[in-house]
């Protein structure tokens, strides 16, 4: 065992190069509060409910109390984990591993140390942070979280709810270890070098089993960062290529929403039934305290009804999105496309629908994703929009789809399709419409635009005008 960097932080260094950092148990107060809350809160809630609503049978009582008990067990388990568990951080064969230990139970996560660009220490924010700073709770005021910033991914939590000073020392030590690892390969000492090394490694070896940031996609025809055309996609019936829609999984969304709505509405119905029964049968003869509690519960219950109504509306909307729009099919005559190239696009919109407005667009869209705290956000912006077709106020009969075929030209100096981890330039065929009595809809279909073929062009050529793309019937 080497000299500890903190009296409470043990470091075990093996002859094989493995290093284990064993953090102590957390300050017990927080865990105790959580355990206490997890046990007492369900008991109190069930007792109040029992006083306020005369349950008709044991099943009704069990139905109401089971979620409360499960919630309490979860909170108490969390408290037990905080109070009795500890964290170990390991470096082994170039892999950084964080292990949460609770007795014989161990839960770990790992990633390559070289993919770590730095370490973050976040102070507790919000309610927990304010509670920690209140002296009455006797919690340490400097509790924090240690996170590892992983290239191309979200920050990974290494140690949660420990004193900041301890985490700072651990972060310094881990940074030192990472630099030692980097020093084994000269000229590579920062984020740029890391990216470059990945590029070199990509050509020379298989990637590590542990998750590394995805390298920029490369197509088979030597076009780095340009996505390949999905040759496994279905062929078209009218034109050569049938396009896949982007970002739409309405069936999955509908299933999830329906299940959640059923559970929610079932719970609310059962609860509401009990309240109605209580109002009808006993409230006039009940003591004043019980009557007050009953009315309190009734008012407390109203937002749950509102939530149920909103869920039902959401289900109906999803049903409409999944089933009501009918099928939209888009096909193109060529893929990949190139700047200045003409191609045919075919759109088939099934009915029955009463359409107020239907537009087919050829769109270039930028997408940028960025980290905001622990969240990732994606912003999109259209930078080119070419109207391929437009039709207003017409009806599509069942079995007779609305079909349209146009010739479109990719703008001459257009940017090619570009896809890397955080940034994208996408070309899309967009079918947007308004249907009588329903909200607007929009379906996007991805097409791939490559740079000009051959591409060795004189630099002295006259620049063409932007937006020279066009549409011909």
């Amino acid at each position, binding site marked *: 065992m080497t000299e500890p960097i903190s009296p409470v932080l043990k470091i075990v260094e093996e002859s094989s190069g493995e290093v284990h950092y064993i953090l102590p148990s957390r300050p017990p107060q927080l865990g105790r509060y959580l355990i206490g809350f997890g046990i007492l809160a369900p008991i109190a809630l069930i007792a109040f409910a029992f006083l306020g609503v005369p349950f008709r049978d044991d099943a009704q009582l069990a139905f109401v109390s089971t979620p409360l008990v499960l919630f309490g067990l979860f909170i108490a388990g969390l408290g037990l984990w905080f109070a009795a568990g500890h964290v170990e951080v390991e470096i082994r064969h170039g892999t950084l591993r964080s292990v949460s230990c609770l007795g014989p139970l161990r839960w770990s996560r790992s990633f390559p140390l070289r993919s770590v660009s730095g370490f973050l220490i976040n102070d507790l924010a919000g309610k927990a942070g304010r509670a920690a700073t209140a002296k009455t709770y006797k919690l340490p005021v400097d509790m924090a979280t240690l996170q590892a910033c992983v290239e191309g991914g979200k920050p990974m939590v290494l140690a949660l709810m420990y004193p900041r000073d301890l985490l700072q020392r651990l972060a310094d030590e881990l940074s030192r270890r990472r630099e030692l690892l980097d020093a084994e390969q*000269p000229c590579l000492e920062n984020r740029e070098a890391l990216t470059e090394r990945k590029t070199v490694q990509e050509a020379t070896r298989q990637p590590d089993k542990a998750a590394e940031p995805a390298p920029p996609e490369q197509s088979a025809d030597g076009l780095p960062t340009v996505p390949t055309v999905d040759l496994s996609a279905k062929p078209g019936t009218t034109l050569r290529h049938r396009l896949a829609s982007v970002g739409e999984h309405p069936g999955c969304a509908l299933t999830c929403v329906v299940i959640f709505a059923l559970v929610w509405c079932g719970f609310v119905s059962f609860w509401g039934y009990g309240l109605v029964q209580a109002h009808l049968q006993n409230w006039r003869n009940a003591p004043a305290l019980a009557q007050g509690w009953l009315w309190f519960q009734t008012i407390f219950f109203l937002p749950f009804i509102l939530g149920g109504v909103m869920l039902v509306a959401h289900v109906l909307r999803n049903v409409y999105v999944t089933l009501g729009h009918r099928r939209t099919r888009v096909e193109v005559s060529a893929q990949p496309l190139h700047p200045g190239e003409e191609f045919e696009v075919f759109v088939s919109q099934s009915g029955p629908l009463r359409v107020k407005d239907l537009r087919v667009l050829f769109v270039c869209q930028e997408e*940028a994703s960025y980290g905001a705290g622990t969240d990732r956000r994606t912003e999109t912006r259209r930078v080119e929009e070419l109207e391929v077709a437009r039709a207003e106020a017409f009806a599509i009969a069942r079995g007779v789809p609305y079909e349209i075929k146009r010739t479109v030209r990719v703008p001459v100096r257009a940017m090619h399709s570009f896809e890397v981890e*955080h940034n994208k330039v996408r070309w899309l065929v967009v079918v947007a419409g308004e249907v009588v009595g329903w909200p607007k809809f929009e379906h996007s279909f991805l097409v791939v635009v490559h740079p000009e073929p051959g591409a060795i062009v004189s630099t002295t050529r006259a620049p063409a005008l932007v937006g020279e793309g066009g549409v011909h019937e």
Partner: protein
Amino acid sequence: MNDPSVLVQLDGDRRNYQPGDVLSGAFRLDSLGGREAASVEVSVLWYTEGKGDEDKGVHHREVLNPEEGQLNLAAWRPFHVVLPRSPLSYDGFLLKVRWCVRVRATITGWSDRVAEAPFRLGDVGPVAETAP
């Protein structure tokens, strides 16, 4: 005595290239003053700028270790690289794609010295925002 520095220039001070063109230029270290360069790295790379997190890719990288050979880094040292077909330089609203030649020298007793020579690859036109 001046601080050590890296100088990099593209032949003919050219700034626009097409895919498949040969990018050529030279670099040298200045004001070394008897210090030794542990390594010099020449990279031709692209990177993104803009709203999203940065992406980066290296098209070509060459590492010179002066200790391994008789290199005179105070003299202009040429480089030649055939440029790829993509990604082309791009000036968008949310993202921009930039290309540059970057020379990084690790000099004993000093922090790394870096010099860049930006250039454009391809002839993609400017964009015009059409819709949010």
